[in-house]
């Protein structure tokens, strides 16, 4: 049985879709069978970030309403044969998602894939609660900025109360993904530091993604950043995060500490 991850945040624009695409691709690049599911009905974008926007025929709502089979709606990635996308509908609204329909689709996907990654819409409404409902674990995407941290706190509360796991009295595994991090600004005291956010939200860290033009370049091209340029800093951070999701224990590195090999040899800067 596959594992279901929800990528969520409460606030919009913090990097849920980018992170879903990058984590999905990173896991698939490691040989896992992965499907990324867009839950943002009405405002779909995962197809665009994955570069599959012109290949969408059927979507999640079609499958839920019985107008298409799951196999007809799934889009296989052109670069990775074990990575699939289940797009959201662009024309209908989220009321077309029924709890039973989503139950059925996720159950079917879990049978076939190792990982089912659900890209949540922003907000705390129905679309977001349906996206998190079946999750075995959650990736909470947060920017080091007050409104994002506040909304993440709210989402953590929902993950602990509105999911099947919570209803069964089980513990939802939650991971913090800190995105758009700028270590220079944090060091200067102009941006919340990693430790500040960790202390406030008190969930374990799965990755720190540096603010980087590589992320925008990848989405311009329609490729997950781990596929667009596997060697760039954000891609490396996503690869590490994917390994942590698979259960590996890796030390967290704060990206942007641009100490090269000499810096590493001579250790941390004095003082």
């Amino acid at each position, binding site marked *: 049985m596959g594992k279901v991850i929800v990528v969520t945040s409460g606030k919009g624009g913090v990097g849920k879709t980018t992170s879903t695409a990058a984590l999905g691709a990173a896991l698939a690049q490691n040989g896992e069978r992965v499907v990324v599911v867009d839950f943002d009905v009405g405002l779909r974008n995962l197809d665009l970030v994955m570069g599959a926007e012109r290949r969408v025929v059927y979507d999640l709502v079609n499958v839920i309403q019985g107008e298409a089979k799951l196999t007809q709606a799934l889009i296989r990635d052109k670069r990775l044969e074990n990575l699939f996308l289940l797009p959201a509908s662009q024309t209908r609204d989220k009321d077309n998602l029924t709890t039973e329909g989503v139950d059925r689709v996720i159950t079917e996907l879990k049978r076939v894939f190792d990982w089912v990654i659900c890209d949540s819409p922003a907000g705390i409404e129905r679309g977001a609660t349906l996206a998190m409902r079946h999750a075995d674990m959650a990736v909470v995407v947060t920017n080091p*900025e*007050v409104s994002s*941290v*506040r909304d993440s*706190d*709210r989402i*953590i*509360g*929902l993950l*602990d*109360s509105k999911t099947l796991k919570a209803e069964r009295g089980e513990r939802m595994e939650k991971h913090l993904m800190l995105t758009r991090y700028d270590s220079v600004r*944090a060091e*200067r*005291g*102009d*941006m*919340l*530091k990693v430790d*500040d956010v960790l202390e*406030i939200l*008190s*969930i*374990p860290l799965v990755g720190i993604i540096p603010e980087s033009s590589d992320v925008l370049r990848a989405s311009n091209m329609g490729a997950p950043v781990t596929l667009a340029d596997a060697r760039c800093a954000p891609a490396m951070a996503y690869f590490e995060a994917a390994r942590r999701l698979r259960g590996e224990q890796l030390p967290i590195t704060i990206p942007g500490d641009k100490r090269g090999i000499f810096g590493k040899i001579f250790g941390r800067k004095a003082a």
Partner: protein
Amino acid sequence: MSIFGLFRKNKSAPMARERLQVLLAHERASAGSDLVSILREEILAVIAKHVELDADRVHVKMDRDENMSILEIDVEIPLKAALQAA
């Protein structure tokens, strides 16, 4: 702004951190989740069956950290009712 202000702006991150800590402590304690209000109602009903009490004097609070949540229930029972129960 003094001339030094041009060179050294106050750091804003500590302010962000402090404001969030205060705000979230409040938000988690009060409205927070539906669960807390449901628990509050039901606990209140159970106790009210046996002792007379003031609904405003019942406080239910949920605190969360990495490994567990702590449910704190604070019920103030009026002296008169406490004597009756004893």
